[in-house]
């Protein structure tokens, strides 16, 4: 028995695939590219502030000290919750935040300096919300997740030779053939990963709409009951001490759950009469973000929310974040996730390249697409450079640079020339970024994390030059 898809179904699927791909082309590219970089957000955070020493030796006492100092600094009042991010192997530094203010904590419990990471924020915010207001941006990105699943479905139906070409990658002078093969092979063999990224991506911005319908259907419209079932019900406490005993809660959790990794402490209803401690601790054999343990403000254990041994569904919902960003397992997993995210970026670029090549003409769309593809990383790097040297805000610089590149691309009629110039710019800027970061932060930049990232920029620059050289060898003379 053989399964086959009719030629007409193939044709219409291809039409659908092309239409959807074009409709989201630039946005999908931005989300995939910035998502690939976001996998390394914790390493980038450390790269941005290399002078803050990486340290895992924080004691519960030093965290308590930092909290009390922070509370004094805020004159005992905060509007929202106080959140303490505890040191972990992938981000070995602690941070305390409330009301949009972030401070690094030294291992002795002092508030060392405000935590500002504009370069990482530039990348991560493009991925999560396209630099739009958070609510709208997250919804837009989640819609892209759904469109990605439509692209996957239409791509499978459209791929008539899915088995016949399973291992075919033809390289050489025929650029279109190579790009087509790359697009198809990377898509097919990475299918489970791409699908997982699409399905989990929809969750972040659009789950609330779905849960509203579930609340109407299963909970008679009472959303709080639904949230209680999924996220655990809130607890009501009164007459809590003004200064919470986080030290005791941290000490107790290490005894109660020695095989877990505490990752955050949230002081719910902070500075109010009913404040309590929510302590998140990661179960290293599970994909859930964390189990949440609740303590009253004097540090007495109350209960745990129960994600780690709750319903399979509850665990599945709480696994979305770590599955989507590859933040599980050894550090190498991030590199693998980065590679797979990069493959998805290549798929999104080659898809549009193929469509453009089939038009038998070149026009402003070709110019713009080239500007977007190579201009985005250039604008990222340029924004990072100006932040490092002149402390200019990254987001406005990014958009101004990208706009300038697009205008310049539109003005240059010889596409090959634009392509080569952009490649040269990108490679040169990667080298300049590595050197600038090293020089600006010297001698703090001599730490392993910074050295690896700066070296990676140099390696990427060499890859871009290698790519450029291969194009020149193919006769891309200007």
């Amino acid at each position, binding site marked *: 028995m053989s399964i086959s898809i009719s030629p007409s179904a193939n044709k219409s699927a291809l039409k659908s695939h092309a239409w959807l791909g074009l409709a989201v082309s630039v946005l999908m590219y931005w989300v995939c590219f910035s998502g690939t970089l976001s996998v390394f957000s914790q390493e980038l955070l450390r790269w941005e502030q290399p002078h803050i020493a990486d340290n895992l030796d924080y004691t519960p006492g030093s965290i308590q000290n930092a909290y009390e100092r922070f509370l004094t600094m805020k004159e005992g009042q905060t509007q929202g919750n106080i959140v303490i991010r505890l040191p972990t192997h992938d981000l070995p530094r602690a941070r305390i935040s409330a009301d949009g203010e972030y401070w690094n904590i030294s291992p002795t419990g002092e508030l060392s300096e405000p935590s500002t990471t504009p370069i990482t924020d530039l990348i991560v915010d493009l991925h999560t919300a396209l630099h739009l207001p958070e609510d709208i941006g997250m919804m837009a990105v989640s819609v892209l997740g759904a469109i990605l699943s439509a692209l996957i479905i239409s791509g499978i139906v459209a791929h008539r030779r899915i088995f016949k070409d399973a*291992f075919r*990658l033809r390289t050489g002078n*025929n650029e279109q053939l190579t790009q087509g093969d790359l697009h198809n092979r990377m898509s097919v063999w990475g299918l489970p990963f791409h699908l997982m990224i699409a399905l989990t991506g*929809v969750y972040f911005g659009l789950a609330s709409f779905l849960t509203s319908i579930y609340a109407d259907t*299963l909970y008679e419209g009472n959303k709080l009951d639904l949230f209680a*079932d999924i996220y655990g019900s809130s607890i009501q406490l009164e007459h809590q001490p003004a200064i919470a005993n986080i030290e005791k809660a941290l000490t107790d959790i290490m005894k109660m759950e020695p095989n877990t990794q505490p990752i955050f402490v949230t002081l719910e209803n902070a500075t109010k009469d009913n404040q309590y401690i929510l302590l998140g601790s990661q179960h290293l054999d599970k994909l859930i973000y964390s189990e949440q343990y609740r303590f009253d403000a004097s540090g007495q254990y109350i209960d745990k929310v129960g994600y780690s041994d709750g319903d399979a569904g509850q665990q599945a919902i709480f696994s979305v974040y770590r599955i989507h960003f590859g933040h599980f397992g050894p550090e190498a997993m991030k590199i693998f996730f980065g590679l797979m995210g990069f493959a998805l970026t290549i798929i999104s670029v080659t898809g549009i390249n193929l469509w453009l090549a089939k038009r*038998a003409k070149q026009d402003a769309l070709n110019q713009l697409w080239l500007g977007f593809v190579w201009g985005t990383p250039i604008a990222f790097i340029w924004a990072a450079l100006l932040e490092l040297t002149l402390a200019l805000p990254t987001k406005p610089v990014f958009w101004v640079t990208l706009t300038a590149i697009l205008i310049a691309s539109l003005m240059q009629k010889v596409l090959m020339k634009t392509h080569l110039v952009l490649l040269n710019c990108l490679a040169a800027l990667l080298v300049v970024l590595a050197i600038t970061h090293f020089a600006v932060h010297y001698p703090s930049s001599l730490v392993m994390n910074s050295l690896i990232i700066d070296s990676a920029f140099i390696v990427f620059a060499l890859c871009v030059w290698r790519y450029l050289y291969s194009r020149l060898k193919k006769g891309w003379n200007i």
Partner: protein
Amino acid sequence: MLLSIAAFLGSALAIGLFYRAWQSTQIAFKRIAKLSALLLMLASLSLWVTEYGPELGTCYAVVAFSLQAWSWIYLARQRISKDIKRVDLPFASGLTTPSTAIAFNALVKLLGSVFLSAICAMLVTVVWTTALSMSKVNQIALGIYTMPLLWGCGAYWLCADSKLWRPVGVLSVLSALSYFYLYSI
């Protein structure tokens, strides 16, 4: 650690067998090789799961398999050295403006893919998941993970069908029926 190495080698061998099956012209060999590769893949998955548990094990298996397949494809790439002269396509100034009918059609497709498919997928997902006999939380989780697929199917159909009214009509009716089913009982 030994189990991880065995699982890694198992999936690499599975891809190798798939490759040999793909290359071969002998039908009998193809079948045996494909079947063996599938069995090896399952064995590899079970080794990953034994070592790291079902959640992490499955993730490792998927990631390892994809990366190994891409590496294999790269190593087995076919270099075509035929000298194909690069043809520069003619450059047309400006952009061709689409007709009003085409622009309207595109707008309907876009709105349908984003909004109509989303509404339909969400309502239908709640209908079918709540019909299953499982706990409420499991129904919701199942819905969260499967709704994007339904949405994707809807968007795909909207852009694939030559008669746009067909998917628009069916998705609208499905949405309406699901809505009345959910909110009238």
